[in-house]
C-alpha cells in the first residue's frame, strides 16, 4: 500500500526535523497521526498493517521483533527511503 508508506515517511520527516523529540516512535502514536491526517482513509487501519509497512521503510533489527511497540527511526534509513520513493514524493 504505497499511500500508507508515503504518509509514514511524511510523519517521520516531521518528527526528525523536531530536535526535542527522540528518534523513537510508538505504534499508537503513528496510528493517531495517520487518523488525524486522513480520517476517512485510515478509519479502520490496523496496527499490524502499520507495523508491516513501517518495517519496509525502516528495516532496523529492533523494529522487526515480534512484540515490539516502539519503533526506531533513523536519518540514514529515511534518506534511503526518500530516494527510493522520490518519484512519488512531491517537491516540498
Amino acid at each position, binding site marked *: 500500500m*504505497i*499511500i500508507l508508506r*508515503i*504518509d509514514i515517511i511524511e510523519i517521520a520527516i516531521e518528527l526528525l526535523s523536531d530536535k526535542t523529540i527522540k528518534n523513537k516512535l510508538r505504534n499508537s502514536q503513528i496510528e493517531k497521526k495517520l487518523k*488525524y491526517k*486522513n*480520517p*476517512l*482513509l485510515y*478509519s479502520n487501519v490496523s496496527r499490524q498493517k502499520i507495523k508491516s509497512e513501517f518495517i519496509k521503510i525502516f528495516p532496523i533489527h529492533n523494529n522487526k521483533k515480534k512484540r515490539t511497540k516502539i519503533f526506531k527511526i533513523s536519518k540514514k534509513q529515511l534518506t534511503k527511503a526518500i530516494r527510493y520513493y522520490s*518519484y*512519488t*514524493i*512531491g*517537491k516540498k
Partner: protein
Amino acid sequence: MSYFDKIDDYKLFFTFSFQTLRKLSQEDKELFNDLFYNRTPEYHRIISMLRNIKNRGDNILIIGDAGVGKSSFTYRILYDNKLINDFNLYPLIVDYGDCLNKNICLMNFISDMERYFKEINNPINTLLNNTEKNIDTNIHGLQKHLSILSRENLQKHLLIFLDDFDYLEENLFSFLKNFFPFASSNKISVILSVRPPLYSAIECYDSRYKIFFTSDVQRIELQPMTTQKLLKKRLAVVLHPESQNIYRTIVSKFLNENSVYKKLLSIYGITNIEQLEKIHLPFTHLYLNFMNSITNGNIREIFEIAYDSLVYTLLHYDDIDSIEEDDDGIIAPRKNLDNKHVILLFTENQTLTHKDKYKRTYRLFNLNEFKSRNKNSLIYNVLEAIKIYEYLNVEFYESLEMMGHSKDAINKIVKIISNKKNRLIVPAKIIPKEDRETTLLYEHYKTTMKGDYYLTNIAYWKEYIEVFGDFGNSLRSKII
C-alpha cells in the same frame, strides 16, 4: 448602407449574446439547456458513470483546453434536477473562479457541508465558528464526522465539483490537500476539471494525488467544438421562437419586431432559425479555420474575435466584397472576410479611421517586434528553438547567438513567452534552476500546442508579412 450611428446598440447585443453561458442564464436556468450546444456523447457517458457512482465511489476527471467548455459542461449536470434526484446525489460546488480567494472558497464549502448534515438529520456539533482561523480544524471535523457515518445514514451520495483550479498555480497543492481525504473515500465522489498543464502537474507531483485525481478515475476528454454552429446558436437568441417567454425579463428591448438586432440578421438574409442553420454567417471557411487554429478551440477567444469581426463588417459594410449565391445553400449577401481583414482588424500598426475608434478585445501578436542586426525575428527564432531543443541549455543559446541575438535579449523574450497574459504565444512556465539543471519549457509548449499553431499559420500568411515585414531566416536553415 451605413450602420455607424447604431453601432453602440449592436455592440450591446453582441456583448450580451457572446457572454459565458453561466452568466447568460443566471436568472433563467432553462435558458442554459436551450443554449447548451453539442456534447451529447460526453453527456451520456457521464450519466452512465453517475448511475453507478453510489456503489463504487469513483472520482471523475474532466480534461479540456482553456475555454473548451469544461465549466458549462459540469454546470449542465448540476442544473439537471431530474438526474440528480433520480440518482440520489447531492452536489457541492467549489468554484475557485467565483471567489478567487482560498479561504472564502473553503468557508463556503464548510457551510454547505454543515447544511447537508442538517438536512439528513445528522447535524455536526463539533464545528467551531466558520472563520478564517478555524478552517483547518473545521475541515478535519467534517472528515471525522463523515468517517463515523455509515453509507445508509448518509442517504444521498455527495458529489464535490472542483472547478477553475487552474488559477491557483503555485498554491494548487496546498489547496488540493484539503480535498484529498474526500477524494480517497468511497462515500464521496470528486469531479475535478483540469487543463492539460495542470493535469501533467498532478501526474508529476505525488503518487497519492496521481492515484485519486488522475489515474484511478473515470475520465472524460472534451474536444474543441465546431465554431460555426456554436456562433449561430448564440446569435439565434433573437430568432428563437420560445425566447420571448424566456427573455422577457432580461432583454425585452431585443425582442421588438422592429428591433435593430433582427434587422442586423436580415442583412445577412436571415429571418428565421431554419435559414440561420443554412447560412454561413459573414465568415468564410478560411476565416473559421483561422479562429479555430489560432485560439486552439478556446470558445471565449472565438467569441471575442466574432464580436470584433461582426462589428467590423457593420462599420465597413459597403467596402467589403460580398459573395454571390452558391449551391451550398447560402442565402446571401454574405460578406467575404479573409486573412487580409484579420490583419487589418487585430493589429495595432494600422492607421485608425474615424470609424475604427473603438477598443478591440482581441489582438494579434507582432512577431517582428524585436529584431537582430541581421533582421531575424527574435520571437520567431526563440519559438523555433524551444521546439527543437526542448530545454534552455547551452545549445539553445549558442544557436540563437549564431542568428545574431544577444543573450540578454533571449532571456527577455523567454520571460515574455512565459507570461500568461500574452495568450497568443506559448503559455510556458520557467522552473527555477535549483530544482532541475536546465529550465524546461517544452512540456507546456507540447501540452498546449498553441505556439505551434501560431507559427505554422503565420508562416503562410502573405498578408501578415506585408503588414509586419519578413521574419528573416529560420533557425533550421542554420542548423542543417
